[in-house]
Every structure is written in C-alpha cells, then in structure tokens.
C-alpha cells in the first residue's frame, strides 16, 4: 500500500445503542487490509471511545480516518458544548456524563484516559459553545 486511504463517517446521536458503528467499520476495513492486530485493536478502542463521547456529549459529529502506510490518523469533530477544562477532563474518573449513561456501562471518566493510553498521539482542541476536535494517531510499526 503506497497511497493513503480516506474514510469519512457521520455519527448520529439519536440512538445511543447504535454508537460504535463507524469504529466497527474502520476495524473491519483495517483487518481486511491485513494491518497488525494490535494496531487494529488500538485504533478500534480509541476511536470507539471517541465515538461514544460524541454521542453522549455532543449530539454526534463527523469522523475522518486516514490510513497511511506507516500510521493511522483519526479526526473526530463535533459541534457540542465544548470542554471547559481539558486537563480536568483528561483526569481518570472525572466525568460529566448523565446517570442514564452510567447505567449503560459508560460515564466512568475513563474515555479520554483510554484514548490517550491507546493512541500514540492525542490532541484535543475545544471551544466552549462551539465544539471539540479530537485528533489521534496510531503508528504502524
């Protein structure tokens, strides 16, 4: 593979149970391309956490995944409420998710820490009232 592959997805917010479809498609695509299973899993998990966040906090958004020969770049954009204090949001256990989300197994304040753990690079740009852009990169060894 010498050229890059660009994948675009819209993430809807109306149905929490459907969240994760984009991550699932990306995972399948990478697997079919024969990408290293550890890389596939790290991309899948970090993207999935990001996708869940978009649905919980931001009424959905868009995901772009670019597959290069040596890395995978993910950009998640939303027009949600924005993050007031990114440092605080990154702290394990800190959450602003509502109770109904916790009863579904999320909202433990582990989403962003997990994304940081699995991606080789994580950048968050956020403006309150405007939205959040999360950029992640996973290197292919």
């Amino acid at each position, binding site marked *: 593979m010498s050229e890059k592959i660009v994948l675009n997805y819209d993430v809807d917010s109306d149905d929490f149970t459907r969240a*994760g479809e984009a*991550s699932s498609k990306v*995972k399948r695509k990478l697997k079919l391309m024969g990408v290293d299973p550890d890389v596939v899993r790290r991309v*899948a998990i970090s993207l999935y956490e990001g996708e869940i966040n978009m649905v919980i906090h931001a009424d959905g958004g868009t995901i772009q995944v670019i597959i290069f020969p040596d890395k995978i770049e993910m950009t998640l954009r939303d027009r949600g409420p924005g993050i007031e204090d990114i440092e605080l949001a990154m702290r394990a256990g800190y959450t602003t998710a509502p109770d109904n989300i916790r009863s579904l*197994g*999320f909202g433990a304040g*582990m989403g962003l820490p*997990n994304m940081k*753990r699995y991606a080789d690079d994580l950048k968050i740009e956020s403006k309150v009232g405007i939205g959040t852009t999360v950029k992640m990169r996973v290197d292919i060894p």
Partner: protein
Amino acid sequence: MTIKDIRQALGARIICGDHLIDREVHSACGSDMLSDVLAFVKDKAVLLTGLCNLQVIRTAEMMDIVCIVFVRGKMPDEAMIELAIEKEITLLSTGHRMFSACGILYESGLRGGASYRE
C-alpha cells in the same frame, strides 16, 4: 480452557455461537463498566457482565473478546444476538451472580491475565 469448559463450569445456557465453543479462552474480565473493560488489553478473553445492552457486544468486538457471559440469568435481546453472531462472539447466560461466576472460573484455573497499558 475452552468456551465449552466455561459453559459447563457455570451451568450456562448457550444463546448463540455454539459452533465456536471449542475456542480457547486465556483470560477473563468481570465488569459492569465498559470503559474499564476497554482499559485492559486481553488475549482471547471472556467477559462476565451484568450489563445487557448493545454496547456490551460492541465493546467485546473492539477488544476481540471471544465470549460474553451474562450473569444473574440476564438475556440479551434480538439486536444483541444478531450483532454477536455477525462478529462471531459466543453468548452465554448463567444464573450465577457476578461474584460466584468469577469465583467458579478462577477456581477452574482461569486468571485475569490482563496487562495494563500505561
């Protein structure tokens, strides 16, 4: 240990994926918090959970988890079963509570075997 052994130890009912029960399971994880499940890298793992929604199957898919055991007799709905079949994940349901189900499997030799990724 295989999925078949787990089924037997827990007296569990197979909901789907019965053609995959000879697959090996190397580690286990018991949790109702999906982000906790996602925090640990596991190899050929079984997930024991009291949660019962579509995101449980999605989480297992992302983690390459081979089998999910629903404790306290919980039963997944049609959409969950459909997704599990598509992703080749065996679903089991046991009447045991979480603590007992984990204990039984631990006693049978299954371990957490998770490595935490800093």
